């Protein structure tokens, strides 16, 4: 319990340093786009592959499980859409990103900590937390909703491709299902979740990296902790947000 309070206190202190006005906005924006490219754009290939395949699998599984003749076939499209938008494109993708960008951030910052690069910045009078962490947090929080949209569209595409290839249902039925009782709030809900989850991932990974100690083993340990804690916190907030927003 004491450790939990210690971590919460250190995290809060770090965030106070992170959310200070940048020394120079030009440097911040340069770093923002660099991090956006590295953390978000570079994740698109992985997210795309996973989304296409999961979209296809959801369609096959839903079609196979609808046995009742009273349930219209277009419900396969409805189920695929709802599964993707409500949970997969935000929560599952965020859990995958926790592994990919979480470990990337914590090991990068952790290596800088143990090789005294962060100390070097502090000696110069640079707020290292603000310079290193703020662009990552802002880029991932602001750009991740677009990643969710990409995942959603590609998931639907994957479902469409499998429908066309296997003929489980017709493309017209799938298309009808995608449009049936569409609630646009679910898209915003998913974007909000994704944005918050990416804030959690980047800020926690940065925290663990920033407090890494004990050489390369310490960096490895901080990466593992960052992923485990991020995933747990994401699941807790998933529950809270679902209760609050739906």
């Amino acid at each position, binding site marked *: 319990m004491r450790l939990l309070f210690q971590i919460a206190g250190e995290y809060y202190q770090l965030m106070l340093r992170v959310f200070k006005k940048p*020394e120079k906005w030009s*440097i911040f924006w340069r770093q923002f786009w660099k991090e956006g490219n590295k953390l978000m754009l570079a994740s698109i290939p992985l997210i795309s592959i996973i989304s296409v395949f999961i979209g296809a699998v959801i369609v096959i599984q839903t079609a196979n499980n609808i046995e009742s003749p009273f349930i219209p076939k277009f419900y396969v499209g409805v189920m695929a859409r709802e599964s993707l938008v409500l949970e997969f494109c935000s929560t599952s993708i965020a859990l995958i990103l926790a592994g990919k960008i979480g470990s990337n951030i914590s090991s990068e910052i952790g290596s800088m900590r143990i*090789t*005294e*690069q962060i100390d*070097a910045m*502090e*000696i*110069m*009078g640079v707020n290292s937390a603000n310079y290193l962490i703020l662009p990552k947090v802002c880029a991932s929080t602001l750009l991740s909703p677009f990643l969710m949209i990409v995942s959603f569209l590609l998931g639907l595409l994957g479902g469409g491709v499998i429908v066309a290839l296997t003929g489980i249902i017709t493309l017209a039925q799938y298309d009808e299902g995608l449009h049936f009782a569409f609630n646009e709030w679910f898209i915003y809900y998913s974007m909000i979740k994704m944005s918050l989850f990416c804030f959690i991932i980047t800020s926690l990974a940065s925290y663990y990296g920033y407090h890494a100690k004990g050489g390369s083993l310490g960096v490895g340990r901080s990466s593992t902790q960052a992923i485990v804690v991020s995933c747990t916190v994401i699941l807790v907030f998933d529950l809270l947000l679902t209760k609050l927003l739906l």
Partner: protein
Amino acid sequence: MIEVKGLYKFFDNEPVLEDINIKFRPGNCSLIIGASGSGKTVLLKNIVGLYEPDKGDIFYNEHNFTKMTLSERKMFRKEMGMLFQGSALFDFATVEENVMFPMDFFTPWSKEEKLERVNFCLKRVNLENVNKLYPSQISGGMQKRVGIARAIALNPKYLFCDEPNSGLDPTTAIVIDHLLQEITQEYQITTVINTHDMNSVMEIGDHIGFIYKGKLLWEGNNEEIMHSECKEVNDFLFANNLARQIIKNR
């Protein structure tokens, strides 16, 4: 001038530094020497503000650094440069970007002006045609020199070096020592160097402080240290056969 007054530092209630009183003057290379684990690095980190002293004060030209607010310290830090044991060059940046880093933050200079200063600093440390290389692409000695170039980029009044010669061959170590001495004298910088390299002691020790188990046991210069009557200093100095032989031949 930097003045350390009655400095104490504890880790887990164990004293690491006890009642340290020492002055570092501009234009001098001040060396803090002592065995590994004696408290040299802790002292240096207290002086630059990476650690907070548990007791005592550190004055920079009569400004009490320990009592300064974060923003006051930040202004002060622009006058400091530091060379780390492992160079601490930024992996993500080229040599040119490393040296330019403090200028990006703290000067209103144009890109051309910054580049001119970068080239001047790199030339000053005898490095040319390495601007576009990354730290991993240059040797340890070159990394140290880039570290020095970055440390002097903003014309600091205070230069701190933590074991600048560690991991370097004796010839390169002497080059680095002379470079630090030249820069110190040329720009009248207050330079504090942590080392246990006896070559450095003899070559550039204008002022030497010997730390033993967290206490400052002896102070003097590179001439006086040879005639010191402090047992711990002599044990440290003449720990190897080579040093004993040199003294015998004198």
